[in-house]
C-alpha cells in the first residue's frame, strides 16, 4: 500500500504526478490576443506583395483572357467569372515590376474595393503566383520606408517578413482609384 499526499495523488504514481503538473502548467498559460490582419501574399517575379484578405474575393487560376480594343496595355482584357465579366489588370505593370513568364502557378486575384461614392469596384489582378493566405500580427507590420521605388510610394501600407523575405502590403482601394483616374 502506498501513502497518499494531501492532494490525493499517490507518491508512488509518477504518471499521475506528471499529469498533475501539466494541468497546473496549462492553467498558468495566459492567452494573449494579438490583433491580426488576414493577408493574401503573392509574388510578381521574385518580389512579394500582399493585399488585405477582405479585398480579395477569390483566387482564380489563370484562364483565357479576352482582348478588348481601346484598352491600355496594362489592362490585358476580360474574363468570364461564372457569367460575370471582369477586367484583368497586369498588376506588375502598375507596380513597376516585370511579370515572370506564364506558368501553371500564375493566378488572377479577384480584387474588390468599396470605390468612390460607395460604388463597389472589382477587377482581376494578374499575379505570378500566390504564396500564402494567413493572419499577420499587426504589430509585426512596419511602416513603409522612404527607399521604396516611386511606383510603390502611396500604395504601400507597410512591410512585414514572411519566411525571411520582405513583403510589401498594398492598398487596393488606392490602387483602383489611381488606375481609374489614369494615375497609373
Amino acid at each position, binding site marked *: 500500500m502506498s501513502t497518499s499526499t494531501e492532494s490525493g495523488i499517490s507518491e508512488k504514481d509518477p504518471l499521475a504526478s506528471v499529469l498533475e503538473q501539466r494541468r497546473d502548467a496549462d492553467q498558468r498559460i495566459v492567452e494573449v490576443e494579438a490583433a491580426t490582419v488576414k493577408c493574401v501574399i503573392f509574388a510578381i517575379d521574385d518580389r512579394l506583395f500582399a493585399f488585405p484578405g477582405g479585398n480579395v474575393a477569390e483566387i482564380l487560376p489563370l*484562364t*483565357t483572357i*479576352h*482582348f*478588348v*480594343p*481601346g*484598352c*491600355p496595355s496594362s*489592362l490585358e482584357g*476580360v474574363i*468570364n467569372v461564372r*457569367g*460575370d*465579366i*471582369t*477586367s484583368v*489588370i497586369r498588376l506588375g505593370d502598375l507596380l513597376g515590376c516585370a511579370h515572370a513568364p506564364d506558368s501553371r502557378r500564375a493566378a488572377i486575384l479577384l480584387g474588390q474595393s468599396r*470605390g468612390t461614392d460607395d*460604388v463597389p*469596384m*472589382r*477587377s482581376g489582378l494578374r499575379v505570378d503566383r500566390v504564396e500564402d493566405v494567413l493572419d499577420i500580427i499587426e504589430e509585426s507590420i512596419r511602416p513603409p520606408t522612404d527607399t521604396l521605388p516611386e511606383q510603390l510610394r502611396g500604395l504601400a501600407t507597410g512591410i512585414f517578413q514572411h519566411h525571411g523575405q520582405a513583403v510589401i502590403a498594398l492598398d487596393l482601394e488606392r490602387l*483602383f482609384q489611381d*488606375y*481609374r*483616374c*489614369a494615375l497609373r
Partner: protein
Amino acid sequence: MPESMDPLATDVSGIDLVRFGVGALTLAVERVKVRGMCKTQDPFAPSLATLLQIPQSAAAATPLGRLLEFDHPEGPHSLRVDEPVIHWRLPTSALRPLPPLLAARQSLACVRALAYIGHPPDDRLIIVLDAWQLPRLATAADHEDPPVLD
C-alpha cells in the same frame, strides 16, 4: 441567319445585332445601324481592324472579307470586316456593361458593351460596338494643308 443560343433561349427580350469577325475577335453592332453589306476583294478597302487599332496578332488576316456600311452621324462608313457576318439576336440578359475600370480607361467610345456566349472553355466574347461612335475615317483631306483665309 439567326443562330440559336440554347442556354438563353427562354429570354424573350433581346437586341438585334450584326455579328462579324475582325481577326481573332468577334464584334457586333446594332442591326438598325448597318445600312448594307457587299463582298470585297479589295485588300486596301478601309478596315475596321485598322480603325480600331487592333494589334496584328488579334487581327490576323482572313481571305474572305465583307464591306459593311455603318450608319454614322457624319455619313455612312464602309469598313472591311471578316466573315462570317451573321444577323443575330442577343438576349438582353447576356448583355453586360463594360467593367468599371475598363470603362474608365477605354479610349474607344464605340466599345459599349460585352457579352459571353457559350460555356467555358469554349465561350466566346462578343464586343458590342456603337456604330455612331466609331472613330472618323482619316481621308486625304486630313493630310492637306488647311486653306489660308484672307
